[in-house]
């Protein structure tokens, strides 16, 4: 089995081969020219790309290449998709090479985001591989003169009852898989699975752990220059004046790029570029036109902005008639950041009027369209190729770095340009997760069940992804013909954007939920951050479930089960509770508490429940998660260990968000610019144990999983704090100083 971007694994291990391969511009493949394709069957992305050869190519040697428009982001998707293909095509994993997101080679599957990859690409590949296998069997039937029903496919070979064999390589000879998929798939049934449901080791891990050239940061091309962009002090800034002459004379400096207020420098050496960038920072005089609102006022400002408000859920009698009888609680979440460990990076080459950008963007197709527009180039003269970067968790600086590389490369035709952001730029310029305010009101009836559930939610867009509008590429804000401000868009339910998961999937007789979508963003730049609104909204909903349970004097898990009929939801909740030992009545030590959180992610994706035990420092108020147990149902689990890894990651990352994180800013600048001013979780705060239980449903549809654990973890921690101390905190993050103050009240 091989992996990614036109490179065999051998090439990766050999290291220097990457240089050669990366410098070759990939040719176009017939199957991927998107337009003009018929609409296919409703099997994930097969609908848009129905031709089987968009997904699968078989070589004369029987080697299989699988194309996906999704990108490996460290979530292990490549391995899971490979398993889907291997299973349904009946080949061994070793026979497969994966090619991931590239505008030149793969189907356009939009963004690798929103836990959609298995549902879109996985489903498409699962069915495409199965239909391809049937076609191969049909060819073998013709060649061998045997009834297709008698033939068996295994390990890339089709065998007749009399022992005659044809390998896929032999069969493909002179034939084509340029065949549109039908809505009939003869899937290999779950009881015959050989690869699905197995925790195969991930394809990408060995090279990552031994120094293979995996990341876009690792790209080295002949004649490559290193560049750094010089960022202004604040968003709204104009470059007044700069004398670049001294910098131009610095060692290694090739060129200072200035277009309007856009400023960057390219040098032969990377450190030379950094020194030159620092010198430019000192030389530049900026005029800053707008200031930021006071951080302390963020929520009141938020609620005072114009909104587009609508009722997004209204069951039974709707709103609670007598609000005075309702329990009321307000939950808030500040700006938080992606804060990737590796700052954003891209390589670009502008040569013979063609621009190629190697990027860790989550959406190479939209990036291509946007970069083309930004540079006024025809789209077909631009290619964007996805190469892995450091984990991104949503829309971080990746696309912007791609834009940086493109702008600088155009100024240096013929030379590949590598741009990497500095740490302070990554912290200061990435789009953040949007702030939220959610007010919930609820009533519990005499039967101990919720009788009314009202909610008002205020937040703004969670998507300012490129999507064809240069205003959404930050570097474009400063170009001569500058674009901006960024344009946000809404994502409709059930996925939702800011309103993701604010509508509880619990069985509730009466609900009235209003989403106050703030039509402008506050001056801080925002976009998609892992699970979008879901993180805060699940925190709010699941905290409120506990508050209502307390008012009904009910156990939190029992109380949830009273409002759940979906058997799979019940299974997940029960499994998490049981593995955690929820019914264990042994009292916890003082200042220890336990909490529970559950979600049916995006209302239709994975089921996930998280239980935690925490301890609270009785002096400082610092919370520590002692242990966490999760249960997850992702439908057909291609690679259970991969799912566990994702949910473990959710639990630990959400612990960091929940305990520590908020973007700080003054009126003149973002002040969270490094790990000292935006602290995240370190090893001291890692739970003693994190255990994830996967409920596999072989044969069931894939359910997106990668973000499902974020909200439940936050809620479980908040609920555990209330259990440990009797103190309910509703403003994220649950920092030690806040807990301490609340404990002393």
């Amino acid at each position: 089995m091989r992996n990614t971007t036109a490179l065999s694994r051998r090439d990766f291990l050999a290291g220097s081969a990457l240089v050669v391969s990366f410098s070759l511009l990939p040719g176009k493949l017939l199957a991927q020219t998107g337009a003009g394709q018929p609409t296919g069957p409703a099997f994930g992305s097969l609908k848009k790309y129905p031709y089987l050869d968009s997904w699968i190519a078989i070589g004369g040697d029987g080697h299989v290449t699988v194309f996906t428009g999704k990108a490996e982001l460290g979530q292990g998707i490549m391995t899971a998709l490979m398993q889907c293909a291997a299973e349904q095509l009946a080949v061994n994993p070793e026979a497969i090479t994966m090619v991931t997101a590239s505008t030149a080679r793969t189907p356009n599957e939009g963004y690798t985001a929103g836990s959609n990859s298995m549902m879109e690409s996985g489903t498409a590949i699962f069915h495409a591989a199965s239909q391809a296998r049937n076609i191969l069997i049909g060819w073998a039937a013709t060649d061998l003169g045997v009834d297709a029903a008698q033939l068996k496919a295994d390990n890339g070979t089709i065998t007749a009852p009399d022992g005659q064999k044809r390998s896929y390589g032999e069969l493909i000879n002179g034939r084509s898989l340029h065949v549109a998929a039908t809505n009939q798939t003869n899937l290999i049934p779950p009881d015959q699975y050989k690869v699905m449901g197995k925790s195969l080791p991930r394809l990408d891990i060995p090279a990552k752990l031994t120094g293979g050239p995996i990341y876009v940061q690792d790209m080295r091309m002949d004649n490559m220059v290193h560049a750094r962009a010089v960022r202004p002090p604040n968003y709204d800034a104009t470059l007044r004046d700069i004398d670049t002459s001294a910098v131009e004379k610095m060692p290694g400096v090739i060129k200072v790029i200035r277009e309007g207020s856009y400023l960057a420098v390219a040098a032969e050496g990377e450190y030379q570029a950094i020194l030159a960038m620092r010198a430019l920072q000192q030389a530049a005089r900026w005029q800053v036109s707008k200031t930021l609102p006071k951080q302390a006022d963020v929520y009141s400002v938020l609620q005072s902005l114009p909104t587009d408000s609508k009722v997004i859920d209204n069951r039974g009698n709707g709103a609670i008639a007598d609000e005075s009888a309702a329990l009321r609680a307000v939950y808030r979440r500040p700006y938080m950041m992606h804060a990737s460990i590796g700052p954003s990076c891209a390589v670009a080459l502008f040569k013979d009027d063609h621009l190629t950008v190697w990027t860790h963007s989550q959406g190479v197709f939209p990036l291509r369209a946007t970069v083309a527009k930004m540079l006024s180039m025809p789209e077909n003269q631009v290619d964007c190729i996805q190469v892995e970067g450091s984990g991104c968790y949503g829309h971080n600086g990746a696309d912007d770095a791609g834009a940086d590389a493109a702008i600088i490369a155009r100024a240096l035709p013929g030379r590949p340009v590598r741009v990497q952001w500095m740490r302070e730029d990554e912290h200061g310029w990435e789009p953040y997760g949007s702030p939220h305010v959610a007010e919930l009101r609820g009533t519990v009836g005499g039967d101990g069940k919720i009788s009314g559930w009202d909610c008002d939610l205020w937040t703004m867009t969670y998507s300012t992804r490129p999507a064809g509008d240069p205003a959404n590429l930050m570097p474009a804000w400063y170009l001569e013909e500058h674009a901006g401000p960024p344009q946000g868009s809404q994502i409709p339910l059930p996925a939702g954007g800011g309103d993701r998961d604010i509508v509880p999937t619990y069985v509730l007789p009466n609900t009235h939920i209003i989403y106050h979508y703030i039509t402008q963003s506050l001056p801080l730049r925002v976009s998609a951050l892992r699970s979008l609104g879901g993180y805060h909204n699940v925190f709010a909903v699941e905290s409120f479930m506990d508050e209502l349970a307390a008012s009904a004097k009910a156990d939190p898990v029992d109380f949830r089960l009273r409002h759940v009929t979906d058997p799979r939801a019940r299974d997940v909740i029960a499994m998490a509770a049981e593995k955690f030992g929820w019914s264990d009545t042994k009292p916890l030590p003082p200042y220890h508490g336990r909490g529970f959180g559950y979600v049916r992610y995006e209302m239709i994706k994975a089921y996930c429940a998280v239980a935690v035990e925490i301890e609270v420092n009785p002096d400082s108020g610092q919370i520590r998660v002692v242990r966490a147990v999760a249960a997850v149902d992702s439908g057909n689990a291609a690679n259970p260990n991969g799912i566990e890894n994702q949910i473990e990651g959710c639990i630990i990352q959400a612990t960091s968000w929940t305990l520590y994180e908020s973007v700080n800013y003054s009126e003149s600048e973002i002040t969270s610019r490094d790990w000292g001013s935006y602290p995240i979780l370190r090893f001291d705060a890692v739970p003693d144990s994190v255990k994830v239980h996967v409920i596999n449903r072989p044969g069931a549809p894939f359910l997106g999983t990668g973000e499902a654990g974020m909200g439940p973890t936050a809620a479980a921690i908040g609920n555990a704090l209330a259990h440990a101390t009797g103190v309910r905190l509703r403003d994220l993050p649950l920092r030690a100083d806040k807990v301490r103050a609340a404990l002393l009240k």
Partner: protein
Amino acid sequence: MITLKINGKDHQVETDPITPLLYVLRNDLKMNGAKFGCGLGQCGACTVLLDDQPIFSCQIPISILEGRNITTLEGLGTAAEPGPVQKAFIDEQAAQCGYCIPGMIMRAQALLKQNKSPSDRQIREWMQPNLCRCGTHARIMRAIRRAAGTVS
């Protein structure tokens, strides 16, 4: 010119001596193991060993390194023949994006070389300087426990 002894081999480097080791490893010597994460000594993505002790290569100019033994991720093993700590990380599938992992492996290597069976608390304290954003910590700790006693 500066002579750097890396993974047992001498390399002559012409680069400006104030250049931090990280850039020399990555660009002059084309080694990918050490990563740029912050350039500030706050995250450990760039960790390599200097005389068996972890350092932030992003902070250390090559001008002060002559005559000392530098070990990088590449010095521990290859994908075909991973070193014991690398192997433990692979066995535990201890990576998500993996960007932080080379630094984690290097720091763990230094610990396990001087302590055959570190306690959980010792592992946490020792690993404290290194950040992971994907939340792979629990697996990293398992991998380190698994590798305990295998480093000589």
